[in-house]
């Protein structure tokens, strides 16, 4: 026993982990093999008949996995962009240009104590961040990122989105109420008032668009906007787009409508008493929400994953690397070497002061650039979901940038101005938009 303990003590940390994990893995693998051998056929048959289930599970997992890096990216963007607008440098120490700082923030949040203050309603206090985060992430399910790349193509996609998005306010209200703090309470109530008020113009502003599109499926709306950028709904529904943008800003609690967590008034609003990962959920939810809202604006009004102009040289790439057989292997082995050498040659020949290894390094870097560009180019031309995803993310991040930019510029509005704006201006304007659209449709396309 002592000998074993001594041996165990001599192991490094990695060794301890490996020695613990390996046997478990071995047992699990054996069990898995047995299960697959015994029931594999049945499972496969079941999955093949119920593909929607596979799709749903994969989509849900992918969306959950995607949300955290998205939040990290937007948090970094927020830190860096606002810093640059403030004439600061912003994060520049962790990772290249400080890009890992948000990841470090995430880790920090994870490592903090899971603390709940005296007097809170524990159950609700714990549930609130989860509700907020889940409602935000669930909204990602219906967003069509590219042709064929979406979680679920509901025929009531937009309705689902509004319904799920409205659940956020429940979480915020739970947080505000359960925190046992007057600032939180005020923040929660503000968020309830604000989100409910802005739900109405938000929903009404897209009704005109729905009349035009004739569907509520977000995928179908994206498909409707294919072609030139003049086909985008923003040109048919400019007022609707503006109202939607403003209402969506309020819906996402972003500056200038960030009254729920107005730090100079009610310290952090509903999140005052939260710390650690519970706060982290709120934090992530906010930024995922920004992404979702931007994605929805892009989907509805800015053509979704469609390029602003159709690709002028339609190419049907029929690459079948498998047909090369053994040649593929040789190609994979030889092309990098030859490419590097070819690209290194000009450096080496250009000046006698360039040493051979330096030229080789330069050549290798250049080759990588060329290869990556080529692969992406081929993928862009050949795979329409890659092209769609690139366009979609590009447009979405333009809007994310706009949200961050607004945060860097604008002061906050007051609560009565906020509500007045929603009810006195946005609501009539969206109704006007709806009537004009309906009238136009009735005139142009009478039954």
């Amino acid at each position, binding site marked *: 026993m002592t000998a074993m303990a001594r041996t165990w003590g001599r192991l490094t940390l990695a060794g301890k982990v490996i020695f613990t994990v390996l046997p478990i893995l071995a047992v699990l693998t054996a069990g898995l093999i047995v299960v697959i051998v015994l029931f594999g056929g049945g499972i496969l048959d079941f999955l093949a008949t119920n593909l929607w289930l596979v799709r749903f599970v994969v989509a849900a997992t992918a969306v959950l996995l995607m949300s955290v890096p998205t939040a990290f990216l937007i948090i970094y963007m927020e830190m860096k962009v606002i810093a*640059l607008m403030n004439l600061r440098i912003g994060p520049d120490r962790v990772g290249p240009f400080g890009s890992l700082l948000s990841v470090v923030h995430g880790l920090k949040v994870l490592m903090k104590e899971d603390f709940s203050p005296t007097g809170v309603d524990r159950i609700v206090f714990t549930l609130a961040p989860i509700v907020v985060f889940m409602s935000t992430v669930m909204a990602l399910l219906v967003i069509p990122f590219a042709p064929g790349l979406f979680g679920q193509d509901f025929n009531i996609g937009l309705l689902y989105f509004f319904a799920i998005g409205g659940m956020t306010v429940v979480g915020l209200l739970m947080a505000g109420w359960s925190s046992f703090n007057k600032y939180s309470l005020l923040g929660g109530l503000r968020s309830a008032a604000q989100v409910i008020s802005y739900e109405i113009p938000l929903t009404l502003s897209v009704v005109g668009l729905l009349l035009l599109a004739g569907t509520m499926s977000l995928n179908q709306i994206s498909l409707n906007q294919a072609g030139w950028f003049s086909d985008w709904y923003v040109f048919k529904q400019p007022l609707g787009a503006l109202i939607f943008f403003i209402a969506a800003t309020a819906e996402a609690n972003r500056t200038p409508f960030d009254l729920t967590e107005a730090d100079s008034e009610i310290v952090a609003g509903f999140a005052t008493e939260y710390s650690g990962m519970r706060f982290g959920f709120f934090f992530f939810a906010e930024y995922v929400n920004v992404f979702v809202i931007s994605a929805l604006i892009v989907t509805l009004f800015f053509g979704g994953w469609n390029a602003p102009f159709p690709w002028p040289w339609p190419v049907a790439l029929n690459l079948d690397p498998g047909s090369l057989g053994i040649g593929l292997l040789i190609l994979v082995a030889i092309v990098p070497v030859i490419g590097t050498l070819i690209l290194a040659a000009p450096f080496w020949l250009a000046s006698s002061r360039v040493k051979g290894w330096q030229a080789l390094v330069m050549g290798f870097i250049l080759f990588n650039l060329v290869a990556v560009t080529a692969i992406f180019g081929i993928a862009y031309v050949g795979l329409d979901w890659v092209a769609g995803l690139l366009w979609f993310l590009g447009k979405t991040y333009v809007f994310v940038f706009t949200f961050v*930019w607004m945060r860097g*510029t604008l002061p906050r509005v007051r609560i009565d101005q906020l509500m007045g704006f929603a009810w006195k201006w946005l609501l009539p304007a969206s109704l006007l938009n709806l009537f004009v659209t309906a009238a136009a449709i009735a005139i142009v396309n009478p039954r």
Partner: protein
Amino acid sequence: MTFIPGLGIVKGMGLTLRRFFEPKATIKYPEVKPDIPHKFRGRLQLLYDEYGALKCETCFQCAQACPIECIDMGGIDTKGRFHVHWGAPETYGERREESALRRSGRTVPDPAYAHFEGIDPDPVDGILEEYDFDPKQMLQILEATQAAYGHLPVAALKRISHATGAWYAMIYGTASYYSHLRFERPEDGIQAAAVADHRPTEATFLTSLDTALAGGRRAGAGQPSGTKPN
């Protein structure tokens, strides 16, 4: 304000976007040193003359003149024999008189400790001798002192502080950390009585506070009206 609604906001957005691309004001501190003016007074350092000798001649005028008494001096004397340290500033009030006394070379009486009982210093001196004035063996010193006196008199702690060069606060912290070290004689109820004697108003205060608290609980019945200040 303009007549077109939203123009001001758009202008502001344009301004921030322009600033987005402008050169930044941040100084990346450890790599780039800030441009500190020649006359800057914020750095604390002793100056050397052109021969490399310390310009400070320990006249203590700075410590004496320092209005918030933040300058404290210590070090090795010129022959390299004695460690000179003036201890932590426990009493700021007497500080300037102290520095005058120190400059004149006399010992500084400490009125804050005059209140405490005097001791026969021989045992503690012997103990200090035994432990070679080593502040690292503070616990042993304190235990021996307690064995000698039955408790830890303040005067003895003060003497230990002076002899070993450790701060009084450190010694006090050490002594109060260990539960077997005590500051009062075990049989001593005298001090508690003295304390109670020192603050006769305490009881009055507590009574008034109690009255106030109890009065509030009784929903204000019989409360005096609030016109009288304090």
